[in-house]
């Protein structure tokens, strides 16, 4: 229900409820000016409020009643049963109308005649005042009696006399169910917040008690504490419920917005809302209101086609925007979908490259789903022209930022010609959340922190031999987790701001930050626990690493980490969102990619720098590739590499992996690692629609660095196969390889040996 309308109903309802009593009291004691003033005020504000909503029937009733009362106040009318009665019937009618509005969300339609009998009787009374007669009650009663009498007894006669005074719904509502007013109480948000705080305290004390009792062998308090535990949990849940609001509250403005948009954009739009009753914490509700509005505007403006276009495509001329909300797995899912033109993945892909959001290689490597989600990147807008509705420079990136602020995530799915769906997932509440309690060594002291479970994907125990292990590359760590490389963040380094010796023990918490996953190394994992999020003061709030603080069972205060802040701080998020503040490792650059991304110079990509030197010759320039493009790093025995017709393959995980030297030369010339092994960087991606794996043979992994995104063209390099650009890395010219080129070569090679498979024409070359 429109919240403004809701307020109106509650306020007017409260006002009207007092009127009966007050009017009757006034009748009994006309000298009570104070009472009369209250009555007049109620009518007056009612009149005003009805004017705002254009509830003309109510406005008229209130207006005339007020006139009568003013006449009484001025002494122009006697206060008598006959003069007061019409006012009471007006009050009754107003109440019926309020009840009807509650049901219908609008004033019951009417031609204005329904209330005439009441209005006439009121006006008749007024005429007495106009005539200036103010003697005894006799002259009053005579003219008034006839028109008033049929209306006076409220219920049946009036209903039959006036044709359908209000819609039948109203009648049903008054008799069958309690009105909104009777079932709900208005309670200040501050009181709710205080309740929430107190429950938070209680939960903490409960936790403390539970700990105490658990440590005691036998305690007379066990059953009592358990009882307390139960009650506390119940109370906590109930108080949380008071903070819950139906998500429909965040939607209430949308029908109006869509209605107005129809005219502006010249489209016909139906808005379907499902699951409006799904409840959500009001704090989160507030946070998602604007993003939702934005998504709907976007759908109306960009998503849906014009009626002509739709007709041509054989779709109904009216477009549909569907809002759907439901609860699943402790989260609220909200979908905003349209049945419009959908998004052209290829157009997004091109645009992404044009805008410098992704490199040419990434463009080919990324899945359609990943490409579509580029629309959430800052600076992306596919609309050809800026329109009044949604092209104001704020894009979907702000939607994502705002959703992520409350621990949510957003993704987009689209099918060309069929429609687009934006799916938002948000936590139910932010006040009490399950969290992982972890330890990080800062200097000699181990400090305790909480990480909200919502962000945690999995926990990995680190061992030096395990399959999931940490690769140490010149001080930068990556976690090899089931064939993927994850950037690894050392929590204690981020917190202390100092480098720490590489440690291959402890735990890695894999966290989700937007679409990216990052491993966070901690020294200890203690526990999972429901924690009460306590907001931190303004001085601490400025630090992006913390989401708040909490008090543990033993009374200790610990900080709750803001996972995205920590990841951002580490620069572990490659490109796009990560404006790394770490300046020290920046490199100068000169490279070629695209023109129009000058403004994005501050954004960083994490590069893997390696060399591929030939034995017994001078060192060649190092090469680099974006770490995000690397699927795996392997070390293999050179003997395992075999020659095929046009190149080399490696028996790898049960299949053949095409491998090559960056310069295309023979494998045998490559400088091996001191242990006789050879390094392989494995890439996988799509080339011409086929999934391709390819390995690049390298002699040495040199470093991992953060470098600004490739940005400027360098003509001399254009056309050189396999090179995407070059930059200066730590004083040395470094070529950034073009992964796409190697994927295409791998594809050619793979196609060859695929056809030869079974003939076993592989010969050893080493």
């Amino acid at each position: 229900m429109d919240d403004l309308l809701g307020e109106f109903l509650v306020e007017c309802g409260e006002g009207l409820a007092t009127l009966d009593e007050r009017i009757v009291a006034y009748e009994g004691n006309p000298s009570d000016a104070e009472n009369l003033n209250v009555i007049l005020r109620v009518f007056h504000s009612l009149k005003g409020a009805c004017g705002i909503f254009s509830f003309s029937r109510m406005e008229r009733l209130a207006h005339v009643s007020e006139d009568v009362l003013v006449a009484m106040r001025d002494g122009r009318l006697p206060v008598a049963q006959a003069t007061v009665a019409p006012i009471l019937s007006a009050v009754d009618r107003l109440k019926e109308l309020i009840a009807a509005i509650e049901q219908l969300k609008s004033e019951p339609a009417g031609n204005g005649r329904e209330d005439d009998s009441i209005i006439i009787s009121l006006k008749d009374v007024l005429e007495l005042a106009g005539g200036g007669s103010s003697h005894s009650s006799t002259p009053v009663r005579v003219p008034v009696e006839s028109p008033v009498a049929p209306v006076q007894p409220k219920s049946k006669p009036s209903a039959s006399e006036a044709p359908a005074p209000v819609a039948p719904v109203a009648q049903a509502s008054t008799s069958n169910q309690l009105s909104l007013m009777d079932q709900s109480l208005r309670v200040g948000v501050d009181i709710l917040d205080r309740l929430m705080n107190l429950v938070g305290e209680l939960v903490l004390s409960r936790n403390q008690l539970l700990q105490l009792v658990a440590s005691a062998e036998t305690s007379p308090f066990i059953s009592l504490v358990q009882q307390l535990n139960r009650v506390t949990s119940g109370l906590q849940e109930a108080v949380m419920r008071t903070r819950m609001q139906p998500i429909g509250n965040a939607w209430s403005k949308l029908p109006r917005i869509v209605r107005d948009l129809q005219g502006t954009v010249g489209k016909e739009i139906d808005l379907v809302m499902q699951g409006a009753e799904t409840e959500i914490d009001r704090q989160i509700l507030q946070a998602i209101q604007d993003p939702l509005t934005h998504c709907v505007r976007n759908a109306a403006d960009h998503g849906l086609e014009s009626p002509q276009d739709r007709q041509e495509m054989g779709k109904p001329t009216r477009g549909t925007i569907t809002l759907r909300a439901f609860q699943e797995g402790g989260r609220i899912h909200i979908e905003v979908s349209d049945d419009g033109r959908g998004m052209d993945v290829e157009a997004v892909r091109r645009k992404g490259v044009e805008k410098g959001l992704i490199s040419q290689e990434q463009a080919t490597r990324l899945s359609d789903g990943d490409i579509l989600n580029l629309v959430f990147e800052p600076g992306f807008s596919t609309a050809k022209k800026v329109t009044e509705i949604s092209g104001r420079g704020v894009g979907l990136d702000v939607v994502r930022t705002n959703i992520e602020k409350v621990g949510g995530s957003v993704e987009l799915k689209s099918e060309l010609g069929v429609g687009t769906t934006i799916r938002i997932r948000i936590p139910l509440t932010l006040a009490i959340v399950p969290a992982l309690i972890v330890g990080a060594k800062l200097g000699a002291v181990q400090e305790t922190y909480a990480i909200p479970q919502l962000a945690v994907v999995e926990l990995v125990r680190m061992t030096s031999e395990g399959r999931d292990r940490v690769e140490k590359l010149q001080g930068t760590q990556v976690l090899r987790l089931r064939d993927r490389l994850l950037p690894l963040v050392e929590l204690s380094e981020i917190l202390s701001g100092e480098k720490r010796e590489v440690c291959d023990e402890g735990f890695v918490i894999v966290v989700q930050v937007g679409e990216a996953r990052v491993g966070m190394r901690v020294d200890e994992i203690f526990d999972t626990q429901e924690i009460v999020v306590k907001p931190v003061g303004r001085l601490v709030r400025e630090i992006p690493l913390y989401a708040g603080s909490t008090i543990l069972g033993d009374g200790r205060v610990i900080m709750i980490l803001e996972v995205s802040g920590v990841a951002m701080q580490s620069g572990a998020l490659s490109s796009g969102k990560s404006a790394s503040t770490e300046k020290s490792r920046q490199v100068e650059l000169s490279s070629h990619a695209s023109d129009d991304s000058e403004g994005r110079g501050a954004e960083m990509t994490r590069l893997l720098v390696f060399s591929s030197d030939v034995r017994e010759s001078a060192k060649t320039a190092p090469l680099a590739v974006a770490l995000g493009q690397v699927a795996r790093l392997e070390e293999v025995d050179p003997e395992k590499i075999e020659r095929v017709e046009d190149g080399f393959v490696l028996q790898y995980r049960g299949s053949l992996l095409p491998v090559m030297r960056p310069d295309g030369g023979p494998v045998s010339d490559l400088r091996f690692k001191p242990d006789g092994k050879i390094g392989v960087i494995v890439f996988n991606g799509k080339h011409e629609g086929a999934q391709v794996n390819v390995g690049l043979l390298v002699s040495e992994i040199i470093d991992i660095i953060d470098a600004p995104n490739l940005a400027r063209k360098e003509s001399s390099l254009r056309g050189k196969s396999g090179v995407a650009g070059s930059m200066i890395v730590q004083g040395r010219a470094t070529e950034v390889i073009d992964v796409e080129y190697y994927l295409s070569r791998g594809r050619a090679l793979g196609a060859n040996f695929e056809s030869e498979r079974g003939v076993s024409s592989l010969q050893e070359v080493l």
Partner: protein
Amino acid sequence: MTTRESTQGKDGLELVSFRLGTQIFGIPVSGVQEVVPAQPLTRIPRADPALAGLLNLRGQIVTAIDLRSRLHISDSDGRESPMNIVVSDRGELFSLVVDSVGDVLSVPSGRFEGTPGNLPERLQKVCGGVCRLEEGLVLVVDVTSVLELGADLSRQGSNAL
């Protein structure tokens, strides 16, 4: 809420006196909620060095500020048992960590004057004035300005729709 205005009541002002090193400071009683002995503090990495940490005051989180560090006082005099002066500012609780807390001093209005111009700038910024008392000169700390400090890391302008 302790501005220069409110510290100069008609009938003088009352100060909670405390010591940092050898210097006596005062803070208007009106802004002080309570004084508590040293508490375990939770460190806040990457915060302003003067942010001593958070403490748990009967379930409420209080931001503690190390006044010594805030006022750059490096007197060698030790602080065996620091005290917390809990103040409330704009609805939030803060604790000022000081070396020791003394009596409440009543200062007749005539004894209160502006800070001398040659006071070091670091003190100039956070002191509302000076009181001449028998105990010596008492520097009156302005709570609001004491609480204005930066962070090692701070959020860059937040996004709003």
